[in-house]
C-alpha cells in the first residue's frame, strides 16, 4: 500500500462536498502534477433520454470540482479557493454507460489567483470529450470559518 497524503486529503475534501456525493464523484488519482476525479455513469444525470448521453451540467460539476481540487496539488496548506470563472469546450458527447474521468492541473499560481486547466475523457486521454480552463481566487488560510474544513481535510480529530 503506497502512502500518498495528497490522495488522502483529496478524498476527505471530496467527501465533504454534498453534491459530489450525490453525483458519485470520487478521486481517481492525485499527485503533484494534478488531480483526476471520476464521475460514474448514472441514469439520474442523463440530459438526453433518447441517446442516454449525460447532461453537460454533470460534466461541469466534475470539471469545476477537479479544477478547484487541483489547487490542493499546488498549495502547501489548504486554502478556500472559490471559482472566478470557468470555460468548457465540448469536443463530443460522452458515451453512455461509461464513467467520465476529469483531470485538472494548476499552470500558474500567483498571490491572489490560481490558473487551472484540464480535460474530461473516457477511454483515451488523447481523445478528450471536453477541455476546460478555470480561474480561482485565493482567499487565504485565515478566512473565517475555513478552519473546520481545513481540519477535516487534514484528518485532524475534532
Amino acid at each position: 500500500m503506497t502512502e500518498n497524503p495528497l490522495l488522502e486529503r483529496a478524498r476527505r475534501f471530496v467527501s465533504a462536498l454534498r453534491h459530489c456525493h450525490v453525483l458519485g464523484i470520487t478521486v481517481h488519482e492525485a499527485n503533484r502534477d494534478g488531480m483526476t476525479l471520476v464521475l460514474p455513469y448514472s441514469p439520474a444525470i442523463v440530459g438526453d433520454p433518447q441517446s442516454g448521453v449525460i447532461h453537460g451540467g454533470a460534466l461541469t460539476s466534475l470539471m469545476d470540482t477537479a479544477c478547484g481540487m487541483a489547487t490542493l496539488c499546488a498549495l502547501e496548506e489548504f486554502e478556500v479557493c472559490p471559482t472566478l470563472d470557468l470555460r468548457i469546450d465540448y469536443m463530443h458527447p460522452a458515451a453512455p454507460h461509461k464513467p467520465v474521468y476529469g483531470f485538472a492541473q494548476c499552470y500558474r499560481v500567483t498571490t491572489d489567483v490560481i490558473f487551472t486547466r484540464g480535460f474530461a475523457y473516457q477511454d483515451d486521454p488523447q481523445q478528450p470529450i471536453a477541455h476546460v480552463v478555470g480561474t480561482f481566487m485565493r482567499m487565504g488560510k485565515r478566512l473565517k470559518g475555513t478552519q473546520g474544513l481545513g481540519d477535516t481535510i487534514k484528518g485532524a480529530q475534532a
Partner: protein
Amino acid sequence: MTHRFKTRLEQAHARGDYTALLDGIPYAQLIGIECTRLGDELLFRLPANKDNIGNPILPALHGGVIAGFMELAAALHLLVFTGAPGLPKIIDFSLDYLRAGQFRDTYATCQVWRQGRRVANVAITAWQSTAAEPIATARAHFKIEEASRP
C-alpha cells in the same frame, strides 16, 4: 426528435406549463429545475435543495450545479423560443461567478443575442436576491439542429 417529445413541447407552449417537458430530462429532475412563463418571457427557478450544496462551510451551492442550471435554462430557452426541432447541443460554455450561491432559491433568465442557421449565442443571468445583483453570468454557444430542407 421523437413525435412524443414534439407533442409535449406543443402542449407545454399552449398551457405555458413546462413541467411535462422537464419530467422527461433526468438531470433536470436531479437538480430540481422549474420553468414558468411570465408574459412572453421564461423564468427558470432552482429551488433550494441540500443535495445541491458544494461548500459545506457557508453553506453554498456547488458551482457545478449553478452552471448546470444555467446551461439547461439556456437550452430550454432556445428550444421554446426558436422553434428548434430538438434539444440544442452545447458547443461551449463560459461562466463568471460573481457571488457565492447561498442556500436559497436561484433564478435565471436567458437572452438569445444571435441565432444563425447552425449556431446560436445565448447569455444567461442567474440571481437570488434581485436580478440587479447576479450571482453568475454565462454565455453559451449551441448547435441548432437544422430543419429538414427540400
